[in-house]
């Protein structure tokens, strides 16, 4: 029963070539998931082994950056808006939201919700929670989201957010995992507090080791948070994680090593959940540094290696070929019909000739800190590129300090993105000229104009056209090689049941496995 949950007929090339209905594309659960059809049952202790977590983790929402703290947050907190498993926005603390012009957003705050401490949730708490990420003194990672925000105020039971320019996607940003609603005091939240209004109350937390939470008896959602207790465990070693699952020390693990998937399946104690989302592995080239200044050189490199081989060997098939497009199949405006780039040494040579070269020598810096298998991927690329007269020298650099010393410092290196649920978020974060995390230093005037214009375009068909054009620009003129989307690969004990649809916007059912799953 433990086949991939990604049906064979719909994989990879199918997605790219066929233009399958992509809103449904993440999802993925075929008939063998009979378990998932049963009604949720209450009870049990749900133990999750997570391959992240460090003794330096904390409660400050602005600093959260990995799966352990994200899942821990989803267990104890609620957000203004939730991204449902099908990718649509659904109300959470905000009962409804509306905007007449795209610049002034009104969120109606739910009444009758209380924090674990017993304090009733008010719109003031929401304002305090959002303001934690605003202002010069804020150290929040999502501070840039609030740069366009000119005002946040309470209006009766509403919270009104004013932007300096229309942004049709603003509610999507409010679903970000950094933005839980926490209790405010004099307009500020206490970033060291565990208090939230989520489905579970923190019993104990030892950063880098474990967190234990008990069900919140007063939780306002009747059909969520089915477990009596949640135990989140940091298990960094992939083999230890697998052992923990096989010896029933935990019920679910994330990041299953692709090499051990078939071994795990043959044991019959667990099943694999492989979810295709927007997460992708990439190789940014510094568009300001020769020879990458010439788009022909970039195109030559894009044609010079075998994407399918990377998916098969680096991801063991748990992923799909990407067409240098950071917008993934789980995005609303994913451009599925874009002309694919197959491995084609002749085309690569053609582009080299256009650039006035007959051979090319570049150095690719890689470490497995960028993604698991990055060094192997670089070696595979260099093997294949040789046929196109391109010599890629693989510079294996240390994991430690990779993001400081290599990423955005060396002209050609490996990187990864968790993907973003909103196209604008992804592009603004990493492709807009001069953006702080524009890792390829790519700058394209047409792209920048389109990006700003698309934000305030409220006509859906027109927006789709604009986003498709932007994807084409990034793919064919951009300076980032994106060969593959990597699936979220989890392993679940046979006792664990999931809803029919498992979210693909983030790992572990959009971090919400703790709230959405149950024991069959």
């Amino acid at each position, binding site marked *: 029963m433990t086949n991939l949950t990604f049906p064979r007929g719909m994989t990879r090339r199918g997605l790219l070539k066929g233009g399958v209905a992509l809103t449904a594309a993440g999802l993925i659960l075929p008939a063998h998931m009979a378990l998932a059809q049963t009604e949720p049952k209450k009870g049990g202790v749900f133990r999750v082994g997570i391959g992240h977590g460090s003794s*330096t983790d904390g409660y400050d929402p602005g600093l959260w*950056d990995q799966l352990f703290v994200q899942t821990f947050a989803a267990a104890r907190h609620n957000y203004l808006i939730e991204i449902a498993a099908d990718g649509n926005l659904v109300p959470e603390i905000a009962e409804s939201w509306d905007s007449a012009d795209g610049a002034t957003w009104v969120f109606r705050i739910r009444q009758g919700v209380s924090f674990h401490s017993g304090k009733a949730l008010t719109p003031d708490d929401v304002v305090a929670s959002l303001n934690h990420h605003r202002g010069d003194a804020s150290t929040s990672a999502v501070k840039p989201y609030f740069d366009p925000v000119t005002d946040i105020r309470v209006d009766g039971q509403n919270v009104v957010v004013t932007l300096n320019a229309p942004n049709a996607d603003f509610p999507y940003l409010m679903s970000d995992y950094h933005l839980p609603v926490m209790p405010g005091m004099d307009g500020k939240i206490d970033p060291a507090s565990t208090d939230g209004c989520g489905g579970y109350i923190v019993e104990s937390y030892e950063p*880098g080791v*474990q967190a234990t939470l008990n069900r919140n008896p007063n939780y306002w959602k009747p059909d969520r948070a089915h477990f009596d207790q949640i135990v989140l*465990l940091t*298990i960094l070693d992939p083999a230890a994680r697998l*052992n923990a699952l096989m*010896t029933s020390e935990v019920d679910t693990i994330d990041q299953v090593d692709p090499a051990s998937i078939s071994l795990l399946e043959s044991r019959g104690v667990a099943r694999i959940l492989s979810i295709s989302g927007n997460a992708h592995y990439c190789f940014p080239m510094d568009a300001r540094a020769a020879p990458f200044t010439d788009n022909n050189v970039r195109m030559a490199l894009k044609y010079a290696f075998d994407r399918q081989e990377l998916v098969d060997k680096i991801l063991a098939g748990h992923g799909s070929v990407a067409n240098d497009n950071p917008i993934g199949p789980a995005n609303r405006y994913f451009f599925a019909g874009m002309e694919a780039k197959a491995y084609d040494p002749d085309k690569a040579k053609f582009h080299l000739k256009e650039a006035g070269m007959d051979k090319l020598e570049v150095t690719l810096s890689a470490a497995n800190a960028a993604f698991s298998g990055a060094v192997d991927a670089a070696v595979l690329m260099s093997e294949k590129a040789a046929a196109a007269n391109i010599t890629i020298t693989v510079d294996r650099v240390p994991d430690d*300090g990779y993001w400081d010393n290599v990423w955005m410092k060396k002209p050609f290196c490996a990187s990864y993105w968790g993907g973003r649920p909103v196209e604008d978020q992804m592009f603004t974060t990493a492709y807009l000229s001069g953006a*702080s995390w524009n890792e390829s230093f790519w700058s394209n005037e047409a792209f920048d104009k389109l990006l700003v214009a698309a934000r305030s375009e409220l006509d859906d068909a027109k927006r789709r056209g604009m986003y498709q054009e932007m994807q084409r620009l990034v793919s064919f003129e951009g300076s980032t090689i994106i060969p593959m989307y990597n699936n979220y690969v989890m392993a679940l004990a046979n006792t664990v049941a999931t809803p029919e649809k498992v979210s693909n916007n983030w790992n572990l059912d959009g971090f919400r496995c703790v709230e959405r799953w149950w024991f069959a």
Partner: protein
Amino acid sequence: MTGLWRMIGQRLLLGMLTLFIISVVIFGATELLPGDLARELLGQSATEETLAALREQLGLNDPAPVRYWNWLTGVLQGDFGLSMATQKPISELVGARLGNTLFLALYAAALSIPLSLLLGVLAALWRNSVFDRASNALALTAISFPEFFVAYILILWLAQTGLFPSMVRITGATTTGDLLYSAFLPALTLTLVVTAHMMRMTRAAIINLLASPYIEMARLKGMSPMRVVLRHAVPNALAPIINVVALNLAYLITGVVVVEVVFVYPGLGQLMIDAVTNRDIPVVQAIALIFAAAYVLLNLLADVLSTVTNPRLMHRT
């Protein structure tokens, strides 16, 4: 007796000096690490502005000697300061982990020291016998494998068959009994790793003595071989044995990070790795000092004990 106390006092002072020098070395080494705490804390997706704000907040902009001095004066007053990453007192962070590490070290020592002494004495007694060769070969095999390999083999044999858990969970409700059961595999792994060293030293020290004239005398008196070894050889072999036991104890406290990772054991080693990768310098310094202190103290203890067990050294003044 005063001579002994004087020696302990001298050693303690020298130990303090060693620790001071080590603290300078550690601080210098951590300064050489690339990258900075603010970047590690905020991750790949941090912008320059947020980085600058956090650096200012944490006092990372002060020059290195100033930061070292502030830290050292704090430590001398018993205050290790706050962790830069979590803003929690380091004593609190380190305290629980140190307890776990000491527990595992003592557990492994309680298994391995009697085992290796017993095996060592028996191997000396029956030297060149099948028993001697077999125990030597087994101990050397165990020490020759990397720790993680021994650990995985034990998991395969003893955890996947359901006899022992493959990972250790320590919560407030964990009793010592539970802990002894769940930490058995890591303790056994460490036992296998350290036994060979102690056992072979015991065997060598005793065999060395068995050639001495006074042992010959004891034999000629008609004593049983066991009595010869236990009453006459072992007391004189204690000094080298104590030294090697102390070294291995220090290793059990400071060098078990691989075993901690494989068995998900929340010990000091893992905390130190976290601190290094996050550039949480005060935590690194505190743990490094603890490790250094463990070596200094255990060596001191070994010296004192070998003096006490040797009347010739005790009455030398």
